[in-house]
Every structure is written in structure tokens, then in C-alpha cells.
């Protein structure tokens, strides 16, 4: 099993050499053709300028705020440099770090089991079951903050509809197992869709060949399907681990006395207003996250190599899970559990807004809906506007960024790639505080503007988008780029005529991700929001905070519906735009 790894590395090295020589070729050629024309010079200038803007904004909006946090962590009482914060915080929150890692590992483990199972069910089923499961994944991709945890309490709490109402249990749901369970299921939709993409690329003929050679469905699953998913599975494990580390909402609402670093950060900020300790805790969190990131990059490369090597036709995965023995049974069970939990959870969220609790029993009501409609819905409009801006600009930014990272020899390429990923690993509240620290003084006074909110959303979501774009860009043949150069086009022509059109498939994914994240992100912008520019998610936060669960559920429902509608619209538009090319 070790052997195959080596060739991958060889191959990527080979690719790098190719890339290098292509640049050399290009520059060599140009010098032959004599002095530059004005147009060439302009193209060159635009290219450099674009690169400078891209890298500059990454430095400004990612590196600088993070440095501000790092700086703050060494800040003594009277503004002097000190290491005392570290010692103090470690003594106080050392156990939280282990808690974080414990929860992270278990959440990642269970989440991956759920994700693999769900992905296998979606890719092997046909007909209405497939549609239903896919639909559930798409809806649950949109996950407004907090309400999922509230639904958990409502369903599985001490007086939960399921645990108490149905099973007659009265148990304490406020502990680490609740956190692990909720994190495990809430990270699944994205992972499952990612794995589904990998499964779709498995060569259908290799499955047929295995059957042909006498392999039972169980053997096919074990020997052919799962091994080909392996790099993807590991990516899931790592991403879930990182997300679990950064997630503060779940432990805050259902952790009870159990706390993780992320929830301690939230505490330090909202309870003690101790920025120094919060900064130190962030530094603690960065260590395991960065470690996980470098592992992730290695694994992703392997995954790409596996996928790229398969040249077969990509078709529906022909495998009957029901006949896969014990393993198939477990997969069926896990996915069944997941889908049922999701249906219950979202049904609970949707219905809470329409149920009036009273002494005489619960009844249907439109009272809360009317109450919500009476308050200003401008926030919803503003949310949509901001989300659209972030989605479009952020997607374009990610496309161009990934082009420079993947195809051009940019100095410190690895460093920038890692840098851009950092916001993904920190709790949103921390990235928000970083922004306030960084941008509260002239000449960089951005606090209180829309720009700071937009930039924060954009750069918080950039890591995922650049990953999507980079993966897609790998499918765009280098030859197309060379052809443009060959025919006399410059870098701008490459970007316009090869890279951006080639990234079209990534557009929809990035846009959807950006849009739904922008509509639902709360942590990052909690501290950045300006009274004049409230967002819908803030109203949601407020409703949760004051205990207006019905209103919170309604806002969450509204957000989910809007996100789905906008995504469907964009899907339709891009589908229309893509059609002429196909026919």
C-alpha cells in the first residue's frame, strides 16, 4: 500500500517542472520578438497589479488582523510585552485544550462515518430515495447558527419530544456527548457532498471488473470503493476536526459545564471582556489547526492523484448496499440515523415558529409570523445584498487567487496558501475581534463601515472557495494556457479566455457556499456589526439570546428559504448560460 504513494510525488514533481519550463518558454519567446508593444506592456502591468492587489489584500485582511491578535496575546496590563498571559491562561484552561482535542477527534470520527455512509447512499441509490437524500443534504447545508442546538434540546433534552415524550427518558443532555453528537451531524452535509463528488469520479468499469472477477458487493465496497475514497475520507476527518476546534456555538448552548477552547474564547470575550486571554486561547487553538492543515494538504494531493488517474466513464455507482453484509448494514444504519435526525431537526426548527405553547396544550399559531413581519425586514434585504456581494466578489477573488497559486510562480506560494486558510481554523468571534483590533485607527479606520463586514465574511469564507477553485483548475489542461501564449495572448488573455471559463464549474459551488455562509455566519461579524447595518442573522442571534425561540425559528426558516431560492436561481442562470456550449 505504501508503494503507490511514491509515484504521486514523482508525478507532481514532474508537473512542477513542466510548469517551470512553460514559464521559461514564454519569457524566452517574448524576448525574441523584440521590444514589447504598448498593449503587451499594459497587459503585463495589469497582471502585476492584479497580483499585487490580491496578495496585498490577503496580507491586509488576513495576516494583519491575526498579527494583531498575536500581539495582543503578549500584552501586559500596562501595555508592556509579557509572557505572563500564556502561563496564566495555560494554568486556567489547559484542560480545555484537551477537551477541545477530545471532542475534535471524536466528532471528526463520527462525522466521517456519517458522511461516508450518507455519500454512499446518495451515490448508490436511484429514484426518489436519491432525490430525497440529496435534497436533505442540500437543505441542511444551510445551517443557521444556534437553532440546530436548540432543536437538539427540544428533541433530545430532559423534556425532549423524543427522549422524554416518546421514550419516557429524563436524562441530562448538557454534556460533551451532546456536543460531539451535534457537531458530528452538523458537519455531515458538506462532507457528504464532497465525498459524493469523489464517488462520482470512480471508474464505473473498475466496479464492473471486480464483479466480473467474482467479487461480492461486500468485497467491492471494501476492496475497491472505500480504498479509492481513502484520501477523501482523511480530508473529511481533518476538516471536521478543524471545524470542531473552531466551533463555539455548540458547546456554549449544549455543553453544560463542559467547555472547549472555542467556548472559553467566547466566554473571555462576552463574560470577562479579557482580550488578552482570548488572544492567548486563539494561539493555543492555532497549533493543532496548523498541524492538521499541513496533513490536509498532503492528503488532498494524494486524493487528486487517485481521481485524475481514473480515465473511465463516470457513471452512477453500481453497488447494492443492502447486499454488502455487515459493513453495508452499518452504513445503512448510520445513514438512516443521520437522515432521520436531520429530518427531525429541521422539522423541529420549521414547526417551532408556528407552535404556541400554553397550559391547555400546544396549538398552531401565526402570531409569531405576524410579529416577525411587523418588525423591520430591512435586515433581511441587507443580508441578501451583502451575501450577494460577498458571493460574487469572493468567488472572483478565489478564482484569481487560485490561478496565481496554481499556475504562476508566485513567491512564497506555500506561505500564502496556508495564510489564506487560517481564518477557517479560528472561531469566528476571534477573527472578528482581530478585525476590530486591526482596523480601528486611521488610516485604516474601517470599523463601523460596511466594508469591514464584507471583508470579514469574504476572507472567512475564502479558504473553502480557493480549495474548490484549485481543485477545478487542476482539470483545466495546461495546453490551453500554452495555446493562448502561442497565439500571442498575454497573461490577461489567459485569465479571461482560459482560466475563468475553465473555472465555471467552481463558480456555482463557490457561490452557493459563499451565499449560504454569508447569510448564516454570526460569530465573525458579531463584533463588527454597526447599529445602522444590522443583518438578519443578528436578529436571529438576538431572538435566541432573549429566548424568543419561535421568532428565532422563523428567521432561521426564512434564511433557509431565501438561500435555497437564490441558489436555485443561480443554478438556473448558470445552467442557461452553460447550455449553448453543450449543444
Amino acid at each position, binding site marked *: 500500500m505504501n508503494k503507490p504513494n511514491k509515484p504521486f510525488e514523482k508525478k507532481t514533481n514532474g508537473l512542477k517542472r513542466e510548469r517551470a519550463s512553460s514559464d521559461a518558454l514564454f519569457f524566452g519567446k517574448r524576448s525574441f520578438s523584440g521590444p514589447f508593444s504598448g498593449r503587451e506592456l499594459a497587459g503585463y502591468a495589469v497582471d502585476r497589479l492584479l497580483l499585487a492587489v490580491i496578495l496585498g489584500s490577503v496580507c491586509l485582511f488576513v495576516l494583519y488582523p491575526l498579527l494583531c491578535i498575536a500581539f495582543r496575546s503578549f500584552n501586559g496590563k500596562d501595555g508592556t510585552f509579557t509572557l505572563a498571559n500564556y502561563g496564566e491562561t495555560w494554568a486556567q484552561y489547559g*484542560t480545555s485544550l484537551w477537551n477541545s482535542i477530545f471532542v475534535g477527534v471524536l466528532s471528526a470520527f463520527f462525522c466521517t462515518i456519517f458522511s461516508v455512509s450518507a455519500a454512499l447512499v446518495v451515490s448508490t441509490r436511484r429514484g426518489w430515495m436519491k432525490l430525497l437524500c440529496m435534497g436533505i443534504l442540500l437543505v441542511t447545508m444551510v445551517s443557521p447558527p444556534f437553532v440546530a442546538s436548540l432543536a437538539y434540546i*427540544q428533541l433530545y*433534552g*430532559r*423534556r425532549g419530544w423524543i427522549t422524554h415524550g416518546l421514550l419516557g427518558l429524563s436524562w*441530562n443532555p*448538557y454534556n*460533551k456527548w451532546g456536543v460531539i453528537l451535534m457537531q458530528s451531524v452538523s458537519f455531515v452535509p458538506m462532507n457528504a457532498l464532497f465525498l459524493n463528488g469523489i464517488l462520482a469520479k470512480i471508474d464505473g468499469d473498475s466496479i464492473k471488473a471486480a464483479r466480473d472477477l467474482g467479487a461480492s458487493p461486500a468485497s467491492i465496497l471494501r476492496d475497491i470503493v472505500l480504498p479509492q475514497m481513502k484520501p477523501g475520507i482523511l480530508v473529511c476527518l481533518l476538516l471536521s476536526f478543524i471545524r470542531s476546534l473552531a466551533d463555539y456555538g455548540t458547546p456554549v*448552548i449544549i455543553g*453544560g*459545564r*463542559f*467547555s472547549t477552547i472555542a467556548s472559553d474564547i467566547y*466566554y473571555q*470575550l*462576552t*463574560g*470577562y*471582556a479579557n*482580550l488578552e486571554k482570548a488572544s492567548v486561547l486563539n494561539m493555543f487553538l492555532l497549533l493543532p489547526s496548523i498541524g492538521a492543515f499541513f496533513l490536509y494538504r498532503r492528503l488532498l494531493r494524494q486524493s487528486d492523484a487517485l481521481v485524475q488517474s481514473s480515465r473511465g466513464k463516470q457513471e452512477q455507482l453500481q453497488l447494492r448496499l443492502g447486499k454488502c453484509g455487515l459493513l453495508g448494514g452499518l452504513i445503512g444504519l448510520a445513514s438512516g440515523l443521520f437522515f432521520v435526525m436531520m429530518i427531525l431537526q429541521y422539522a423541529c426548527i420549521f414547526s417551532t415558529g408556528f407552535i404556541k*405553547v*400554553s*397550559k391547555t396544550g400546544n396549538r398552531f399559531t401565526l402570531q409569531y409570523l405576524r410579529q416577525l413581519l411587523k418588525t423591520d425586514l430591512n435586515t433581511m434585504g441587507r443580508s441578501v*445584498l451583502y451575501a*450577494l*456581494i460577498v458571493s*460574487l*466578489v469572493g468567488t*472572483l477573488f478565489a478564482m484569481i487567487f487560485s490561478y496565481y497559486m496554481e499556475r504562476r510562480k508566485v513567491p512564497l506560494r506555500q506561505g500564502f496558501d496556508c495564510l489564506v486558510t487560517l481564518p477557517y481554523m479560528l472561531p469566528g468571534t476571534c477573527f472578528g475581534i482581530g478585525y*476590530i483590533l486591526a482596523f*480601528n*485607527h486611521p488610516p485604516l479606520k474601517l*470599523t*463601523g*463601515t*460596511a*466594508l469591514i463586514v*464584507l471583508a470579514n465574511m469574504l476572507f472567512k469564507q475564502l479558504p473553502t472557495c480557493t480549495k474548490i477553485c484549485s481543485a477545478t483548475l487542476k482539470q483545466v489542461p495546461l495546453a490551453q494556457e500554452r495555446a493562448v501564449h502561442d497565439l500571442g495572448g498575454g497573461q490577461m488573455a489567459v485569465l479571461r*479566455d482560459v482560466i*475563468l*471559463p475553465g473555472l*465555471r464549474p467552481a463558480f456555482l459551488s463557490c457561490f452557493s457556499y459563499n451565499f449560504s455562509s454569508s447569510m448564516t455566519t454570526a460569530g465573525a461579524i*458579531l*463584533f463588527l456589526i*454597526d*447599529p*445602522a447595518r*444590522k443583518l438578519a442573522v*443578528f*436578529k436571529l442571534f*438576538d431572538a*435566541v*439570546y*432573549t*429566548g424568543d425561540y419561535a421568532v428565532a425559528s422563523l428567521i432561521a426558516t426564512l434564511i433557509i428559504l431565501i438561500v435555497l431560492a437564490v441558489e436555485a436561481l443561480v443554478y438556473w442562470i448558470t445552467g442557461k*448560460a*452553460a*447550455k*449553448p*456550449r453543450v449543444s
Partner: protein
Amino acid sequence: MSKRVLSALLAAAMLLSMAACNKEEKAPETENQTPAENTTTEKPAESEGKEEKPEISGTMKAIATSENYVTLFDKFTAETGVKVELLSMSSGDVLSKLRAEGGTPSADLWFGGGIDAFMSAKEDDLLEPVTFEAASEIDPQFRDPDGCWYSKGLTIVGFLLNDKLMEELNLEQPATWEDLTDPSYQGEIIMSNPAISGTNYAAVNSLLQAKGEEAGWEFFNALNENIAYYAKRGSDPKNKVIADEFAIGITYLDDTITALKEDYDVTIVYPEDGIPWIPDGVACFKNAENVEAAKYFIEWLFSNDENLQLLAEIDQKTSIKLIKPSLEGVELDYSPDILMELDLSKFGSMRESILAQFETLMGDKAVNE
């Protein structure tokens, strides 16, 4: 063809975003224009007849504990022409945000929240002193001597009981704080983390003051055994009790809690051995963009009884009568004698040490779990 659609889309996106940014960024600038220019144009007709008033204009950004105050701010807008943008945030978040902003606050007025946070903010020099004539009518213990904060009411603390659960678990009604340490209540009491909830901080601070440090901490250690967990939001104890999750919640008491009786089987207990309380603050941020409007708002609020009546109505509590005894039209619905004797100045000074000690208390159990 398709290529063109894509690039057009992207171009549109760029333009849109730039336009939006410009618009949003410019907005504050126009608001900052000299007051003289704006008051005339923005002042609604109805307020023209009003007498002396400082020249205020533009938009006032307020951070409040709830969006319910919008009617009060609407009244302010109607009378002064100053638009109000309201954002609700807990006082801990406000303090963090203020500290991170390093003296360049993105709001003007701070409306509501435990007085301890206001005291901390004053210590960090983040509040702007405000003085006005009617301030003399406010009970001195409910205003900062320098005018950095004023109190807009009192939050009082008591118990909310879930009758169904009490019966089911065969529990007796607790009448005093001391009762809560009875082992029969184990795992059935919920309170909020005092670091986050001003109400619960008030309970801790008040009881420590009343019982003395040593006896006080002994009490909280015993209480800790019965507390299921410390919720991270101030409204949680109330929410969890009405959701039948816990039998007893330590919560703020006001008319909204009383109103719960209509829909839920709950009992409100005013502890016999004293009711902790905490003033609710209002203040103006130092270096705020529209500091004049915020200052005037505080003056406007306390100078006119009508405004305070409206406030009492929104807050669903009558404690404003204690703040401004001369106030007409609001009658206190409980006797002030039931409130504990407190030295308010200790709310700020003891905060850090109390919370630090409380954290080890809360943490102990986490390890045992």
C-alpha cells in the same frame, strides 16, 4: 456566448460591490456634516415649535439590551429629528467590543445592561460624562458622581419555579436563598454564569455582601452542588424552566416573568432573606461620532416624566420610581424594603476577584463530570 454571460456577471458583481461600499462608507460622512446644515432640513415639522435644544442631528447609533426600546427611540426621533439605529447586544459583548476598538467606538449610546459593566468601562475611560439639570432629581446612588453613567431602572433577582416538575419530583417550594442548598434540589436548579449575566452577577455580589465573604462562599459552594450547569445566556434560566427542563431557575423578575403565568404553570418566589438587585445602566461612549445626540438623549429621557413612563412600560417594571422618586405616573409595585442592603460601589471593585473565584467553582464540577 456563455463566456460573455459569465464575464458580464462578474463585472456586474464588481460594480455592485463598489457601489455598495461607496454608498455605505459615505453615509457616515454626510451624517457628520456641520449640525447647522442638517437640523433645518431634517427636522420634522411637528417639532419646530420646541424650545431650546442643543444643535443635534444625523443618526444616533444605540446599543441596547433589547429591540423593544424602538418605541422609545421613535419618540426621540419624532421630537428631535435624530434618527436612531438600534442594535441589541449583551453588556459583556459591548465591553469587549469597546476595549478592542481602543477608544473609537462604532456606536454613540449604551442603553441597558448590568451596572458592573458600566463601572468597568468607566474605569477604562471609555465613557463620556454627561451632566444636565434634571440629574439632581435622580437618587445619587443611581448615578455616577462624574455623570459617566445613569441608572434607568433596577433588575431584581428571584426564583422561577416549574409547578409541574416541583410536584413530579416531590419538592418543597424554596422560600429563601438558604433553602436552595437543600440536597433534594440536586441537579434541578439552573442559573446563568455570573460573568455573562448581570442578573446573576448581582445575585452573587449581593449575597456575598449580605452574608460576608466567608459565609457567602460557603453558601455558593453548597449551591453549586445543586446547580445543573451555569447557562451562557441571561435568559436561559427562565427559558429552561418554562420548557420543563429544570424545576428552579434563578432569574430576573419583572412583569414579563409575571405574564408567563398565563401560559405556563409557574410560580414566582421573592426570596424572604433578601432580594438582590442591580441597576440597569445608560451611558454615552467617549469619542463617539454623534456624542452630542447621545448626551441629549440621556437628558431628554430623564427630564420628561412621559419618557420615563414609556420606558417603565417597555421594561415592564416600575423600579424607575426608585431612581427618580419625583416621577409621576409610575408606582412601585413592591415595597423597597424587600431589597437587600447593598454597597453599589463594590459591584465594580469586586467584580474581577468574584468572577475568578466563581470560575474555579464552576470548573470543579466540570472535572468531576
